[in-house]
């Protein structure tokens, strides 16, 4: 099952296209011709709001250890802990991730992105996947931070801190979103490996719990979480996030002073 239907957006073109991706070869078929993914210029394939979920991997919560019972947390989270990756953060496959002048390294947050296909309010766990258009790969970049008490806007909402892509794999091509291997390579070296089987809230459960209080609109993207042990990367590092059945998202970290208009000149 290495060929999947995908939706793509190319840089500078407003309309979406449909295509077939060959995941084994990391190639895409457009009107009968085949291209390597890195030959093409990609735009982020999403348009709506992007919501991240904190501590949704069992290991990520466990990594906090006993501190969850201490001040300031006073216990494990009950409801999903969400955050927003605003519009200024979203960039496409292949675009440089800006390293801000006040940061030495960036945490790489490998996340499965669930892209909504229609408005979802108070949907049940059983019906949740019917509201999903498909899945993409999101690099939820952060400046490393140790406290999770206050919203981490300054650490998570910098320009270019949310690479997304290269495409959206259609929902019916992913039989079980709760059993996908997630891997991160930095400069070709495998640095992290996990699976969405380790989610605390499965994709369906998460959609149900979030839409209980908050509508997700068509085009919004919900990140299922970042696994524990997120690797860090520095200027010049090439970052690749691979998710089984979805593809690979690749970006390079470049110091922000070397970028103009989101590109290195």
């Amino acid at each position: 099952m290495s060929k999947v239907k995908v939706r793509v957006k190319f840089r500078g073109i407003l309309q979406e296209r449909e295509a077939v991706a060959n995941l084994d070869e990391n190639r895409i078929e457009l009107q009968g011709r085949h291209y390597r993914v890195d030959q093409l210029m990609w735009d982020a394939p999403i348009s709506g709001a992007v919501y991240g979920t904190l501590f949704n991997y069992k290991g990520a919560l466990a990594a906090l250890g006993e501190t969850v019972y201490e001040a300031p947390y006073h216990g494990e989270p009950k409801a999903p802990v969400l955050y927003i990756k605003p519009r200024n953060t979203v960039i496409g496959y292949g675009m440089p991730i800006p390293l801000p002048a006040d940061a030495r390294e960036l945490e790489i947050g490998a996340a499965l992105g669930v892209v909504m296909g229609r408005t979802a309010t108070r949907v049940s766990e059983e019906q949740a996947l019917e509201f999903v258009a498909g899945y993409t790969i999101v690099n939820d970049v952060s400046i490393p931070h140790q406290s999770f008490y206050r919203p981490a806007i300054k650490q998570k909402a910098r320009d270019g801190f949310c690479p997304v892509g290269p495409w959206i794999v259609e929902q019916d091509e992913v039989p079980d979103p709760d059993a996908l291997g997630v891997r991160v390579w930095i400069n070709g070296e495998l640095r992290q490996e996990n699976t969405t089987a380790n989610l605390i809230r499965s994709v369906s459960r998460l959609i149900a719990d979030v839409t209980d209080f908050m509508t997700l609109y068509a085009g919004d993207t919900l990140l299922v979480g970042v696994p524990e042990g997120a690797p860090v990367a520095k200027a010049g590092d090439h970052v690749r996030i691979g998710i089984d059945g979805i593809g690979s998202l690749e970006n390079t970290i470049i110091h922000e002073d070397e970028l103009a208009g989101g590109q290195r000149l």
Partner: protein
Amino acid sequence: MKRARIAYAGAIHHAVEENGCMKLEDGRIVAEHEVVWLPPVQPRTVFALGLNYADHAKELSFQAPTEPLVFLKGPNTFVGHRAQTRRPKDVVNMHYECELAVVIGRPARRVKREEAYDYIAGYTIANDYAIRDYLENYYRPNLRVKSRDTCTPIGPWLVDAKDIADPMNLTLKTYVNGKLTQQGTTRDMIFDIPALIEYLSSFMTLNKDDVILTGTPEGLADTAVGDEVVAEIEGIGRLMNTIIADE
């Protein structure tokens, strides 16, 4: 000029206030009660400030912050003037928060406080409801508390920036069923509007139609189903909404 977004006669229009009525772009004049008020801008990135008035911070037993306490709100949470806000069953403390909302007019990156006002399109009012029952201590206050559907009325008008001589000297008042329950002045903000624009734009780009909700003074109170809540800011307007039962 005061500007509104409204639904009227099967379409969405922009309107301006004229002699107590609303003038649509095509010249039609309609009365306020004939329209459905929508949020006066379609918000993009929305920032909200926690504990930005010293008296309110004290009221909640917090020390005033040394750096702005900022959280973000999703597009789902906004409703217009005269809208309904749902109160979940079984909650014991759902309080209003009357706030001056600053609407950004153009891209802003690394803006110094001296130039900050040049980036503002105008001002409106937000009622930033919070359900304290749902507070937890992770990325607090989290979206379940602060970004719920219907829980951020905003409007009625976007008032042009040039029409507000000093946004840092405006009286804020909240009335519940006609009774004054909250009163303060924007003078008492810990981080004033130029400071907030300088702070946020120091690490990220602000864009047109981004909105900054600048925090609320003391005087919070629980609201009940059926309450009519009016958030009023001098020179900006009166934002009314009604609490309804959830279910």
